[in-house]
């Protein structure tokens, strides 16, 4: 990326014998919203802490705007950080919390008052200046933390699972608020989360972390629709993994013989040798159920369970050798448990993963 603002170059971090971040390269563009998503212990938070300056890399370099920052102490990096537990100063009022970074930068008293008022108005907390953090709800505290991280207009804002402690409704509201602020202020945001929905709804790009490496990075639909590996396919959303052997390849279509003996066709840009073992990911909502077969890519299944989810039904269907999960709109399904039906999906809606 030519206008990249943040560069990680071959960054590693080890604690004793544990390698937490492993020889990692990552570039983040100016104004981008990048989520780092992964299971706990995958290195995403450590990477963020290195960017903020609370940890230093064992090897490799980090630069922001072309300048190396990995030797700079945190207070000289000019980044706003929002922590999971908000980290508001309990001995200061809300206004003093938000004024803190301005005082550190030697702003005049009138300027502080003006900017604190503006920042608190932005997060709709204009009436709470003199409250103590402990007197606020979780969502309000989180908005104070956000105002505090934004008030000094940092180039980069880092967020470490900032919405983890909020309930679902509030979390969704805050997701929209943060997105909105990101667009309005043109901030560069690096956002750590283990919540895949959060990453999918908020980010320009998502980096999927696993064992200290980035398994895949790309836009939300890239990651969801075209997962490159089994780990990504299973970590983001639900998936059905079918394994089989390539029997022939032509014109970007692979014919794969599944373990149960049935053949399906898979669209694939890579021409794979016949005989090669492959895994195929099919999203549950891409599978259609029909009472009788009428084309290709069909698997005979027996419905073993139907679970009502309100807006959709989740159906367990047995192919004989394995179980499929299918997400279906509830008005199109008339099947009963025990019924034998046909599950089908088009070659373009399944994907080879490694």
């Amino acid at each position: 990326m030519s206008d990249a603002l943040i560069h990680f170059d071959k960054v590693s971090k080890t604690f004793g014998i544990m390698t937490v971040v492993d020889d990692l390269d990552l570039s983040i563009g100016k104004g981008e919203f990048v989520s780092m998503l992964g299971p706990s212990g995958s290195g995403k938070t450590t990477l963020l802490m290195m960017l903020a300056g609370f940890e230093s890399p064992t090897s490799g370099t980090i630069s922001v705007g072309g300048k190396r920052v990995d030797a700079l102490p945190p207070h000289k990096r000019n980044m706003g950080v929002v922590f999971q537990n908000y980290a508001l100063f309990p001995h200061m009022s809300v206004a003093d919390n938000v004024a803190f970074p301005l005082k550190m930068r030697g702003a005049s008293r009138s300027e502080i008052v003006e900017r604190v008022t503006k920042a608190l108005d932005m997060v709709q907390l204009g009436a709470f200046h003199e409250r103590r953090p402990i007197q606020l709800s979780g969502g309000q505290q989180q908005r104070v933390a956000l105002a505090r991280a934004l008030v000094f207009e940092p180039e980069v804002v880092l967020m470490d699972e900032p919405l983890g402690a909020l309930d679902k409704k509030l979390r969704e509201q805050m997701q929209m608020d943060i997105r909105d602020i990101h667009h309005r202020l043109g901030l560069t945001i690096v956002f750590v989360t283990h919540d895949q929905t959060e990453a999918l709804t908020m980010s320009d790009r998502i980096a999927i972390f696993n064992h200290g490496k980035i398994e895949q990075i790309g836009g939300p639909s890239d990651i969801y629709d075209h997962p490159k590996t089994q780990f990504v396919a299973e970590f983001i959303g639900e998936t059905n993994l079918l394994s089989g052997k390539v029997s022939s390849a032509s014109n970007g279509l692979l014919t794969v013989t599944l373990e149960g003996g049935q053949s399906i066709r898979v669209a694939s840009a890579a021409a794979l040798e016949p005989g090669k073992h492959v895994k195929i990911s099919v999203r549950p909502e891409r599978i259609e159920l029909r009472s009788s077969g009428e084309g290709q890519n069909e698997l005979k299944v027996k419905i073993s369970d139907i679970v009502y989810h309100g807006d959709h039904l989740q159906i367990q269907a047995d192919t004989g050798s394995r179980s499929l999960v299918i997400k279906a709109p509830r008005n199109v399904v008339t099947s009963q448990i025990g019924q034998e039906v046909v599950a089908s999906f088009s070659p373009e809606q399944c994907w080879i993963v490694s």
Partner: protein
Amino acid sequence: MRTLPIGKAVFGTAVVIFLMAPLFAILPLAFTDSIFLNYPIPDFSFRWFHELFTANAWRRSILNSLLIGTGTTILATVLGTVASLGLRGNSASLLFSVFRTVFLLPMVVPAVVLGVGMQLMFAQYGLANTYVGVIIAHTVIAIPFVIVNVTAALQGIDRRLENAAASLGASPAVVLRQVTLPLAMPGIVSGAVFAFATSLDEVVLTLFVAGPNQRTVARQMFSTIRENISPAIAAAAFLFIVGTIVIAGLILLAQKKGQRA
């Protein structure tokens, strides 16, 4: 496991009586008008409090106690707080656990042993029979109380608060001044109060290192009870107990404030 409520109440009361009885035995004697320290009390009077504040020996000892107590509090609180900050977050390192043990050692080493050692050492450095010497001696045994209290307070501080302050532009010195110390303040105040109480109460080390000019109230009571058993001791004891209750109140207040923060 549940004990009968009645059994609990009886046992609790018995323990309280056992602990408090000596106090209640001596307190009324502070208000006797007799010159003997015994019952029955012929008449009620404030003469021994008057004696306490006018007799030269007692007055000096009260001033000495306040002076030495204040000096000890300041020195022990500063050193103990700095030590706690230094020991913080290095619990895994062997060197630091050795340091921590050494700092807390004066709590368990017999005061007599410390006293003998200090007397010999102070004599060599010209500190024997000086205020500075007594303050240093009291500081040694007061520091563990400060360290225990401040360490507990520091452990209660979320490191992310300090990280947040740093990310917002605060240098390490500013983080310490504006975040760490204010949040640890309840622990520092409790430590300081304990240090003052320790100094006030200390007799053994004072016997070894103090000269006649540094006689504290505790030391004065000790010699008075051996030389002439005067009810002034009871009056001094009364002041001590009232002082202790005030101090305990202060500690409670500081801790309560700490919980609120």
